[in-house]
């Protein structure tokens, strides 16, 4: 009587198995739910594919037809003569401002907040300020640039014909715009470096700066690098603040004799050129798409570089 009859045990196991499997029935609501999720994701990715397809289908013929001439020609009022030469040059110079100003200042601020500052009310306040600055709409930074650089400091940053709306004003505005993003991404990279690295360095008598310079920063470098590259990409595509601080829309024809003259002179950028052409008659349509292809090509390369760097150097502690 000790053992349970074998036939009964089988039915019990069978009963449990069946009830766990839902008695062989498919749960259609689960299937439907998963199908909806996949559909939504496919829709999102589909929109991206659609956008890229429209842009490349309409843009590449113009680019192929006009070749390098489109990439070097200045702004003009006839679509078949207008090119993005000045725009690319202006955008590259704006990038230089971002790299020279935001990177050292942003990384320095992140190092202070993560490595030096104790958890005081001041530190928490600065952290809150940085987070909120990152959420300020970009056009508000344009207003800041307009009030401070173009109007208040206009005679310094852009005397003469530019009347304040100079490359210098645009570059400084852009640098301020990406500063909070650089601080936040660099801070995340610094936080990912484990404390044991710092303690080992302190243990052999390094000062805080020596710890940061020789140990923390090298380990955090890939993360910081990725973040700064992405913030650069953000600045490259940013349009609204440049419109307010007066990147040239329409056209200009000046030869600059010195770097200072160019800094204080008028300029334009790739995204503002896209915006300007987008408002022009339909004959400019091919130009708009071609300029967008150039813009997106640069951004895709930059993004791919950042993602590659992150995957290549990603380290788990």
């Amino acid at each position, binding site marked *: 009587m000790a053992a349970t009859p074998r036939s009964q045990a089988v039915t019990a196991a069978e009963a449990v198995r069946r009830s766990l499997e839902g008695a062989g029935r498919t*749960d259609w*609501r*689960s299937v439907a*739910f*998963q199908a909806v*999720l*996949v559909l*939504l994701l496919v829709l*999102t*990715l589909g*929109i*991206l594919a659609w*956008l890229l397809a*429209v*842009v490349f289908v309409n843009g590449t013929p113009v680019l192929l037809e006009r070749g390098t001439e489109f990439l070097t020609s200045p702004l003009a009022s006839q679509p078949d003569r207008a090119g993005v030469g000045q725009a690319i040059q202006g955008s590259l110079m704006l990038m230089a401002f971002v790299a020279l100003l935001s990177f*050292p*200042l942003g990384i*320095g*601020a992140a*190092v202070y907040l993560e490595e*030096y*500052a104790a958890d005081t009310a001041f530190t928490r306040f600065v952290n809150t300020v*940085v987070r*909120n*600055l990152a*959420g*300020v*709409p*970009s*056009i*508000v*930074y*344009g*207003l*800041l640039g307009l*009030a401070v650089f173009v*109007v208040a400091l206009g005679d310094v940053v852009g005397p003469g014909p530019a009347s304040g709306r100079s490359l210098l004003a645009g570059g400084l505005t852009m640098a301020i715009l990406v*500063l*909070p993003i650089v*601080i936040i991404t660099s801070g995340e990279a610094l936080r990912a470096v484990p404390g044991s690295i710092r303690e080992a360095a302190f243990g052999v008598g390094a*000062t805080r*700066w020596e710890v940061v310079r020789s140990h923390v920063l090298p380990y955090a470098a890939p993360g910081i690098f990725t973040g700064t590259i*992405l913030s650069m990409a*953000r600045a490259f*595509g940013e*349009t*609204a603040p440049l*419109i*307010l601080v*007066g990147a040239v829309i329409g056209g200009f024809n000046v030869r600059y004799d010195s770097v200072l003259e160019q800094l204080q002179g008028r300029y334009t950028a790739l*995204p503002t050129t896209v*915006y300007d052409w*987008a*408002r022009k008659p339909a004959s400019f*349509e091919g130009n*708009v798409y071609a300029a*967008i292809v150039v*813009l*997106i090509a640069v951004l895709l390369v930059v*993004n791919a570089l950042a993602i590659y760097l992150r995957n290549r150097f990603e380290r788990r502690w």
Partner: protein
Amino acid sequence: MTAIPGPPTRLSVADLRGSAARRRRETAVRLAFMAAASLSIVISLLIILSLVGEAWNFVSSVDLALLVERGWFPRRDLFGIPTIVSGTLLVAGIGMLVATPLGLGAAIYLSEYASPRARRTIKPVLEVLAGIPSVVLGYFALQVISPTVVDPICPGATEQFNMAAAGIGVGILITPLVASVAEDAMYAVPRSLREASYGLGARKRTTSLRVVFPAAISGIVAALILGLSRGIGETMVVSIAAGATGGSLFSVNPCAPGQTMTAAMTALATGSDQVRGASLAFPSLFFVGLLLFAFTLTLNLIADRFVRRFRVRY
């Protein structure tokens, strides 16, 4: 017998401190970093001062009755704030109607259903979508979304420039943001909660919707608020696709052209070559900017609250 060595030379605090030059360098570096960190406070103050200063000029010199006029025509000194605020809310609302299902759907799928491999491929693609500049989406909204999506839905002949197309464009723009913040929140829900749910015999769908989703709800709400804030501050999509560059009468018809706060600002900056000269147009720019700043700051602070709450929990 060798002598037992005497006590070691006594180390003073001065010995441990290191050389004076080294200490001076430490202080200098520390101060430089601190200055860099304080710069963000300076920038915030500059933003607030420049906005408030000019906005005050505007408020003190404009006839306040003009602010509730049912139309926004700054060059004719008609500053109907309700017109641009309602336009902004309409466009951002349409954007949220698009971004909420797309973003949350992508977030639930990536966090709960996708294999690690699929996650690794899809997330970078979403980042690419997040990196598409808003001018590009604006032109896409105007040239593609307006004729192919909005036109068939809207009754009668629809203008190519309309708020619905701009709203959809804004929605596409904020979808990756909503998806990424919501996905972070759901991914952070501890595994043990999911396993407890499976242990009770729940299905994957039930676990996702009844366990993970509620546990991550504050992060998900934060994602939606941040999306809304981004939608309100979005400029280029609306400037290009919504039309009404010169000004607009009060209108909440999504099938018609309209004006938002941000588009009103770019229109003022590009409409004539000298914004500076025009009477009240220049200060009105800053008044609208201050309003926009207040809107987005409030939303961001609320979102921050929600995010912090879900971080504390686990």
